[in-house]
């Protein structure tokens, strides 16, 4: 493989490996990395994975688009639905979903509403979010922002738009969040997971070219680094070939 693996390609491969054959899931709003991950999983090991829950089934895009809410990004697709069916999917839940936001905190909570101030008098008003249900009606979800800095990884979010693990197991139980919630946080620098006892985020592996110390320096809270942190397994020859030749033909993930 000629060109070096890009951070976004590494993210796609990590996420694709965790999606299983036969599952139902969708990409969410910022779709570039999640859709590539879904497509890669379908090509490699999950041919019966169904893309659904966001008003279309099994899109076949000609190349990657930043948003799936674009008829061109769907390319051809097997069927379309409407918000009425989305209402049902939101209650029944999916197997997996993806989220990212303006701020992400040490328990995987995500903020898309405001940074600074209050909701009524915001320092900076964000976009809000449409679907707040898939994060807890689905079996699990992934957090995958395409930047990783102390500005978007903060100890505590200013507003919980998408609940992750709230403030831990007790708060989660009290709020009626019964599913796994966020499983992995995958960024251009590293993979994080959550301590099963406290549900606090911790560093799981760092992508090639990053050190645990660097990742910690770009994170606004303690990542609980103990001892050696492994490197994220890089893409295999097959993963990279399929990703570049069949999914990301225009090189969007390397731009």
């Amino acid at each position, binding site marked *: 493989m000629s060109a070096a693996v890009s951070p976004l390609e590494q993210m796609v491969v990590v996420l694709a490996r965790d999606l299983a054959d036969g599952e139902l899931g969708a990409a969410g*709003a910022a779709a570039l990395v999640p859709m590539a991950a879904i497509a890669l999983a379908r090509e490699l090991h999950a041919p019966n994975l169904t893309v659904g829950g966001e*008003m*279309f089934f099994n899109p076949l*895009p*000609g190349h990657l688009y*930043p*948003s799936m*809410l*674009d*008829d*061109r990004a*769907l*390319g*051809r*697709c097997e069927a*379309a639905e*409407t*918000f*009425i069916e*989305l*209402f049902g999917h*939101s*209650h029944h839940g999916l197997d997996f979903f993806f989220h990212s936001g303006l701020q992400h905190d040490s328990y995987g909570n995500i903020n898309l*509403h405001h940074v600074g*101030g209050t*909701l*009524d*008098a*915001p*320092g*900076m*008003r*964000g*976009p*809000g*979010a*449409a*679907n*707040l*249900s898939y*994060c*807890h*009606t689905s079996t699990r979800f992934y957090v995958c922002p395409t930047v990783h800095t102390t500005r978007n990884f903060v100890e505590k979010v200013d*507003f*919980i*738009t*998408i*609940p992750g693990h*709230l403030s831990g197991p007790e708060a*989660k139980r009290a*709020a*009626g*969040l019964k599913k796994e919630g966020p499983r992995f946080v995958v960024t251009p620098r590293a993979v994080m997971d959550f301590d099963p006892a406290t549900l606090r985020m911790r560093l799981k592996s760092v992508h090639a070219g990053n050190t645990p110390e660097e990742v910690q320096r770009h994170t606004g809270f303690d990542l609980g680094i103990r001892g050696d942190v492994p490197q994220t397994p890089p893409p295999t020859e097959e993963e990279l070939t399929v990703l570049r030749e069949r999914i990301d033909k225009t090189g969007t993930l390397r731009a």
Partner: protein
Amino acid sequence: MNGQTKPTRRSKVTGLQDAAHLARDALQERPELCLGGLFKQGRPVALVRGLLAAGAKDLHVYSSPGAGYDVDLMIATGAVEQVFIPGVTLENRLCPNFRRAVEAGQVTAHALDALTVVGGLMASAHGVPFQPIDALRGSDVLKHNPLIREIDCPFSGRRIHAVGPIRPRVTFLHAQEADRWGNLRHLSTMVYADQLMARASDIVIASVDRIVPDEVILDDPSRVTVPSHYVDAVVEVPYGAHPTASFPHYAMDEDHIDAYADLGDAARTGDRAGLDDYIARHVTGPKSQGDYIEAVGGAEYFARLEAETRKR
């Protein structure tokens, strides 16, 4: 028949300005306006511009759960008091005028979610007093959402949510085709919440890319997405969704939206001249859709957006 004329079926085909006046007058009675489409697809933007040119203020704006350019433009012209839309974004960047006006306290942006809006439209469309929702947990949105109440499920006893009917006074939709009676056909892949809104609203006004002969509808009735029963007026407007997309006829105009957002960002940081000029050239200036098309760049410019739809 003694010279009396036999009554005939009334065509719902309306001019853009008449449609805008119909909407403006109805919204003066109750300011709840709802917009079809989603983000940059199938938005009834020509109708929105018409309404803004006709003069609208203090609007309460609803939409399918995601909106961007059109709501931002309405805010830029000072027509909006409250926004009831869960996600307001241009997707690749924030909505500048929405941000500015909410941060300055000039516009109230309610914290909502998709199920509240869809559920409220469902209750209205179905004629029931509320729609139960059992999939909202853990989000701070629940502390602020003004449209939901907690109730006990009468069967399980569980605490769930209920949303009352959302009944827009006026809904604007954009579809690709209609006949003169107002039977709409969406040819785009997704139809968003358009069918639900049509059934939930007092007055429904649709723009379409073209009016088709009656036979087109009669030959394929299952292809009709919104029956004319729900539609009050239909307006043939070339490029009526611009700068959003009307697939499969033309794609979204990302360059136009980006240029608009740059002007909005300049206004946000103190220089409003460009934004005011944009509004004069695109909203208040044009006397017709033909004028608007010229102001944007003319026929050749739009031909490029048509070609874009074939690049899949």
